[in-house]
């Protein structure tokens, strides 16, 4: 697996992520992998001991992970939130908005294209999980 694109300052988490079933069945894991059909809310009671949640994007058309990301951030999760799978350059800005702060694409992305994609839009219409103020808030300062 390639090194993740990380947008965090802490050290990368070393422990391998376990499945949701394995995580819920044992008490000491600190990294978990969530498949796209699994319920992110099952993790909410355990967020304080998680350092890494890896959310699977099995195909770029499967958008369930965007909801999973926001739900986890809305519940107060502050650890690493990783999008793994069919992560394409045209989607990473949306992922960042939904709270993902590390990306592990199946196919490597061009660094310049990533930088351009993440800086392209100066402003956004909605409040999401990235803390950016929506345009309506800017309008009414």
């Amino acid at each position: 697996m390639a090194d993740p694109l990380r947008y965090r300052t802490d050290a990368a988490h070393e422990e391998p992520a376990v499945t949701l079933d394995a995580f819920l069945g044992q008490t000491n894991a600190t990294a978990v992998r969530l498949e796209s059909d699994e319920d992110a809310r099952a993790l909410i009671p355990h967020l304080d001991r998680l350092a890494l949640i890896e959310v699977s994007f099995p195909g770029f058309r499967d958008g369930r992970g965007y909801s999973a990301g926001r739900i986890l951030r809305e519940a107060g999760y502050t650890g690493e939130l990783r999008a793994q799978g069919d992560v394409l350059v045209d989607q990473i800005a949306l992922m960042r908005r939904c709270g993902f702060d590390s990306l592990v694409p199946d196919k490597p992305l061009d660094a310049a294209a990533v930088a351009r994609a993440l800086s392209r839009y100066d402003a956004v219409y909605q409040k999401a999980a990235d803390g950016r103020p929506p345009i309506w808030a800017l309008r009414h300062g």
Partner: protein
Amino acid sequence: MYKYDSYDQTIVDTRVEEFREQVERRLSGELSEDQFKPLRLMNGLYLQLHAYMLRVAIPYGTLDARQMRMLAHVARTYDKGYGHFTTRQNIQFNWIELKDTPDILAELATVEMHAIQTSGNCIRNISSDQFAGAAADEVTDPRPWAELLRQWSTFHPEFSYLPRKFKICVIAADEDRAAMRLHDIGIQLTRNEAGDVGAAVYVGGGMGRTPMIAPLIKDFVPIDDLLSYVEACLRVYNRYGRRDNIYKARIKILIHEIGADSYRQQVEDEWAHVKTLGLDPPRAEFERIAGFFAPPAYDSAAPDTIDRSDPDFALWVDQNVKPHKQPGYAIATISLKPVGGIPGDATAAQIDLMADLAERYSFDELRVTHAQNIVLPYVRKADLHALWQALDGAGLATANLDLISDIIACPGLDYCSLANARSIPLAQKIANRFASMERQRDLGELKLKISGCINACGHHHAGHIGILGVDKRGAENYQLLLGGSGAEDASLGNITGPGFDEDGIVDAIERTVETYRAVRTDGERFLDTYRRVGIAPFKEAIYG
């Protein structure tokens, strides 16, 4: 009308440049068609039978003369001189070249237009009542809420890769002129007993291969909470809508499978959480937007009578002109359904003319209807005759609104890569069969809708008479449906029986309407007769 500020303009301009890069990546081979397809669809660009097709958004069907002229310019410069107004209140250009699309979008952006989210599995252009702001029966103008939803849905980070496309409609009158309950979310603005505006929210309607009329999910959402409630509706769908089968991926299937009560409860639970996140803009933002939709500077001295001495003009007034909330004014519908023409098509010259007439007679505003016609919403009654004369000179004064020749038709197999049968030639044949306006008026309100495939872009399920084109062993075949309605009395049509070839279906329609004439009571519409007597006498006449 809403005007962009620098935030809105920057987003649209940035999108053009983003798409320009994506097109370059496709033309250079960096992107495969599989990778490019979802990107072009998010910008309204399809690959159809003969060329690329560009669908341009007309938010809630409202536009001004400057925008209308830009559409004419695009038709003339980049297409073959015409455009096609759609059942989603948008416009499509049929002969677009991929390499031109960034320039076209850049030109559209200069008049605050775009093609964002006119396709793809995302929240599509918000539709609304074409009489919004002018209708005598509305509770409030729905368009400020539609604009708020437009902005909220644009590049929504969580809802850009939904299981399937998602269509939202906002109306504010009891008469449903926008097929509200046939949308994924239909919103009807109402007032409660205290006089506060709120929203009745219907979820899970749609056409396609499994048509559904949306059930009422919540009867009154306080208006300041509308966006968070819609956000909760979408989140439940994004998480639990089916992704294993494209034909079962619309929200209507989810709600059908789990039941409206279960869906309602899930939305309530999600909303209780989502409402705490501060997603709803402040009232000041609504008021800013609503300010753009203030009533125009009406002439309060405008005479409230119409000189009906010209009989042809009087017929047009009776059919195509509707009451207005402002005394002295009327709402005029321009039919894009001349007998023998192509439903919804307009030439660049006609588009320019309609722009001129909107400027001269309708406070610079036009609307597109889901029935593929154009509305001038603010016409002085005293100007109607001059307006009619100008329209008549351009072939735009057909007095057939809601009559049998006011046919909704999808592009069908003449243009569309999904179609199984042609829609347009059939619409032309039917209109020619019933060319006598006297006969059409005798038949009264009769909404005929044709789809060239099961995807139902031509709303055949909602036609009083609906026609579905299918492929029968390589030949075009047409099924007949009766009794549908997209209005406030929404219902889905029933198939009469075996299908017909192109001439056979026209004969079957003739037998259908003659049966209606034989059994109707005084003043009874076709739809009401059908509901009273049932399908049996029609089947007997058609197949007997």
